[in-house]
């Protein structure tokens, strides 16, 4: 089979989410502060609160190449793939097709900038083994990786890549803890009341599918996270961490440092 000459769409969707325990206090906080809607859509009581799905706070798994596994899976691997496939994503390669391929990142409204210094994501010193030298906590490894995704996507746009961040809303996938998956048949009944609470994957992927055909000028903008809202797609607003040009460039430099050192090809 060799019918493809160009990649039109590259969905960067791989993800993992280690969950240590449930943070019921966040649910209670949401209930008592009027933030239940926000809680159901994002897992947080408000933009500054911690997440309902608490992640390991003293570090988490590291890959064989020394990178925090969540960051590696969500960001580094995809970034490397995008770089390696640039030739296939380029516009006008074959058959007069002038449209560049689109890099579409699965983003999340659970993204958090709580670790915006990125200290804990830094490349460890040469010869480092394990996690001993990695500074900072990982209380929000999923949220921080998703924010890193937003930043990296913005940096790619600055480098003339059609990059799009899209959030399916709150959906129950195989990554979701089992008891929430159990509740899916119940949770769908709340959908009409909650615009970003899409629950099922089949509904959530609508946003991803729309990104394949939506006008690039509308959906591929630095800092814009497209989210499925009342069944339509619009930019995420409340609670979205701010994607600044400086932060996006810092994340690009950090990722590049990983790819040039610990993730560089073996000689």
């Amino acid at each position, binding site marked *: 089979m060799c019918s493809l*000459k160009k990649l039109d769409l590259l969905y960067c*969707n791989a993800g993992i989410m280690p969950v240590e325990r449930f943070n019921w206090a966040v649910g209670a906080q949401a209930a008592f502060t009027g933030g239940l809607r926000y809680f159901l859509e994002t897992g947080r009581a408000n933009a500054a609160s911690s997440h309902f799905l608490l992640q390991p706070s003293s570090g988490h798994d590291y890959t064989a190449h020394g990178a925090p596994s969540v960051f590696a899976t969500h960001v580094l691997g995809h970034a*490397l*793939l995008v770089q390696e*496939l640039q*030739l296939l994503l380029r516009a006008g390669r074959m058959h007069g097709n002038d449209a560049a391929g689109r890099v579409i990142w699965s983003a999340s409204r659970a993204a958090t900038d709580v670790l915006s210094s990125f200290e804990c994501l830094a490349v460890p010193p040469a010869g480092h083994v394990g996690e001993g030298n990695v500074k900072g906590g990982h209380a929000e490894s999923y949220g921080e990786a998703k924010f890193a995704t937003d930043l990296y996507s913005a940096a790619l746009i600055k480098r003339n890549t059609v990059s799009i961040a899209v959030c399916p809303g709150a959906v129950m*996938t195989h990554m979701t803890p089992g008891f929430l998956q159990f509740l899916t048949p119940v949770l769908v009944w709340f959908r009409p009341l909650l615009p970003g609470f899409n629950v099922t*994957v089949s509904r959530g992927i609508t946003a991803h599918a729309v990104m*394949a055909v939506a006008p690039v000028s509308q959906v591929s903008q630095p800092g814009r996270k497209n989210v499925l809202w009342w069944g339509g797609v619009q930019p995420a607003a409340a609670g979205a961490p701010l994607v600044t040009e400086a932060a996006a460039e810092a994340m690009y430099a950090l990722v590049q440092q990983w790819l040039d050192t610990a993730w560089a090809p073996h000689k």
Partner: protein
Amino acid sequence: MTLAQLLAIWRKVLPCSGIGFHLAKELAAAGVEVILGCRSKSRGQEALFAVLKAGGAGAQASLCLVDVSDPESVREAAQGLRRTYV
């Protein structure tokens, strides 16, 4: 039957698989040629079968084994794609 087995069965009947899998099925059904990037060969083959089935007659889909947490695996997969399609 243990509780763990019951949970496993229940999780299978719930529509809680991954975003990528559902998306690939939808795209294939819309006539898009799809390359599935999967870490596990056995699960990837199952997914590929489901995607081809969803795409109906003439569906085009293939499997590319890749572990995005491993740079060598990513480079190998990308090299394979470039070799096939460039």
